[in-house]
């Protein structure tokens, strides 16, 4: 795509005139210089955007189109299906199957519940940490920041493994310590398994989001904060009335990221699924997609579910953006 643009630009410019144009940069007429600059800008833009465009096409558009194509074709059978399958165009049949599958819908239920628990904790805790760092009340600010960010550097699967170890009765020192005090807690039991999952994800993401909030807080003009301090506002009041409203856009961004990340939830529950039967192999939509492709050998079903998930993600992102913009307008 980008190569086409840049070669077009080159073709539109005969070689001899390029020489003149280059010379004109020193002493040519003004309008030609402006035109050349615009051309150069366009070429530069194409060159800079090009690699992104190619990557975008390769890793997003091509697979997307491929997924849509796959979702419209299925190995089709008739009757009992013994030995009579052929891959044919089956239209929207896979979509109908996914949409009538109770396990696919329940995956979204899990995501919804997950978000209800996760988002408030994520926003409050990471924003709180960022405010603390920003207020300068924390000594060794850089070290603290690094330590808070560190969990994010641990790959999700490793984090899930460590936490799973800490949750598992019989091996976990935490469970043993709790039962020593007379508390028997089953982190992988029916009531706690989702909060336990949220905890793993939060542990991984709090530091990262704290950095985002911190950056936003640092961008607040210092005069504004000085003004509020001069007006006699306490640090608490400054945080609540001045800082937080000014990073509202960042809060929306973090919520949106959390929603998208939750829809993609896969690594942690997949690990849980290995030994905790309460976390089914279709616990989240992403797990459903994997299960359909590799356990049920149904690529049509899997692709259809993937396309539906993409649409849901887009709609949700759009909804969150719209909702936040409306808030801005009101202000």
């Amino acid at each position, binding site marked *: 795509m980008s190569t086409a643009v840049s070669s077009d630009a080159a073709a539109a410019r005969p070689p001899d005139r390029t020489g003149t144009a280059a010379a004109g940069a020193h002493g040519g007429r003004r309008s030609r210089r402006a035109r050349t600059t615009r051309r150069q800008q366009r070429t530069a833009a194409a060159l800079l955007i090009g690699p992104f465009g190619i990557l975008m096409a390769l890793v997003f558009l091509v697979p*997307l189109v491929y997924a849509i194509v796959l979702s419209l074709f299925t190995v089709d059978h008739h009757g*009992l299906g*013994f030995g009579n399958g052929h891959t044919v165009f089956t239209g929207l049949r896979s979509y*109908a199957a996914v949409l009538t*599958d109770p396990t696919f819908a329940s995956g979204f239920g899990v995501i919804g519940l997950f978000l209800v628990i996760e988002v408030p904790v994520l926003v409050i805790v990471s924003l709180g940490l960022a405010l603390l760092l920003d207020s300068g009340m924390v000594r060794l600010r850089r070290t603290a920041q690094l330590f808070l960010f560190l969990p994010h550097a641990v790959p999700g699967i490793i984090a899930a493994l460590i936490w799973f170890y800490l949750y598992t009765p019989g091996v976990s020192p935490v469970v043993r310590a709790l039962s020593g005090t007379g508390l028997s807690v089953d982190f992988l*039991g029916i009531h706690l398994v989702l909060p336990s999952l949220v905890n793993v994800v939060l542990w991984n993401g709090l530091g990262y989001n704290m950095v985002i909030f911190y950056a936003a807080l640092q961008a607040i003009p210092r005069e504004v904060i000085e003004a509020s301090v001069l007006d006699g506002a306490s640090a608490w009041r400054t945080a609540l009335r001045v800082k937080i409203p000014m990073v509202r856009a960042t809060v929306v961004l973090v919520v949106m990221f959390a929603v998208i990340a939750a829809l993609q939830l896969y690594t942690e529950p997949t690990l849980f699924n290995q030994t905790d039967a309460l976390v089914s192999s279709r616990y989240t939509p992403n797990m459903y997609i994997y299960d359909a492709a*590799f356990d049920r050998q149904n690529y049509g079903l899997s692709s259809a579910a*993937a396309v539906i998930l993409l649409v849901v993600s887009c709609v949700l992102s759009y909804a969150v953006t719209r909702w936040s913009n409306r808030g801005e307008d009101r202000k």
Partner: protein
Amino acid sequence: MLGVLGAALALLLTACGGAADSVRAHGPVHITFWSALRGSQQVVDEFNRTHSDVKVDFEQIPSGASGGYTKLSNAARAGNAPDVATIEYPELPGYVIDGVARDLDPLIPAGTKEKFQPAALDLTSFGGHTYSLPLDIEPMVFYYRKDLFAKYHLTVPTTWAGFRATAEQLRKAAPKARLASFFPNQMGEIAGLSWQAGAQWFGTAHDTWQLSMDDAPTRRVAGYWQRLLDRDLVRVEGQSSQQWTAGIQSGDTVGYIDGAWAAGALMKSDPPGKGRWAVAPLPQWDPAHPADGTEGGSTFTVTKDSRHPRQAMEFILWQTTDPDALKARLSSGTSSAFPAVPALVPVAQHAMDDSYFGGQDIYAQFQRSAATVRPQWMWGPRMLATLSQVQTGLARAAAGSGTIESALRAGQAATLPDLTSVGLSVDSH
């Protein structure tokens, strides 16, 4: 993220297609064999030692959904499945529908099918064609601690009503002890118990799949076990889990229900229990008409991709019907698989050290149970997925959320889209 998934899918599809088959032009014909069964290496070694025209290249694959079956399906999709693959009964219909398992009728020599127990062969035949040959058939039996039964003055229950009464009696006599375990992670158990009661989850009538995991016999079994769970008369724990093994060893769990193969596993789980265990038939709903279900068992098929189907069949026939093959398999350690070929039962019986069961001829019991395995049972087209959904429901039921019956209904509901999306005609009720 979605794009990445799609790309991974595409990559996987093309990558699998690249592997080449290695067939030699001269010398013995090489066939490949994938199995998760223990003792397969010994069987293959013995085959290669005694055969010069065919050589088997064996690959041990992981058992279960996450390992071997996925690998087999992907290889078949890419056109390089092994010549011979081990498939358990519940998974076979899916492989037949997907075209992985070959119609073996043209390959099976005349008079061979008669060697197999009809109930086993029934499970490997669809629409009048045989798609695999069974190695073993595993009737369900009740394993119990003879010494503890004597200690608590219990008699071995012969009916399900008696089973519940015995469970109550035991709990009164020893509040910590339970008569048996309910395995929420053992997907086949509730199926086998329903099978025994006369349920038929899957059937084929009018060229249509009949789907009913909530029929009257199933409801009866599900309700019965639900009451046992609700009244805390059985232990709820994963099969072969640490807790289960601990309970078995300490005598807190005095019995359990499982397939014939589990006798061998028990010897490994509880070595000090030697001489204390015994095997009884599964309790009955109607003692006048004894019936049994099965739990476990494997079959061998020749895949569509095989370039040497004749040689593959030769290997399968040797594996399933030759005494030397069975001896080689049993030489790998303690096994109590019940052969699907009745003529081989004495071989297995001879290989089994009966001192663990205090001299009881457990194969004689297996044989009686195998004779009453109820015919007409059929597994469904996406059984692995169905059972895994049931298992999640059972885990929830065990945790007090939902019931065994609702777990089965959920399994059925989660199966329907799988079948309709590939165009099978389904009648769900």
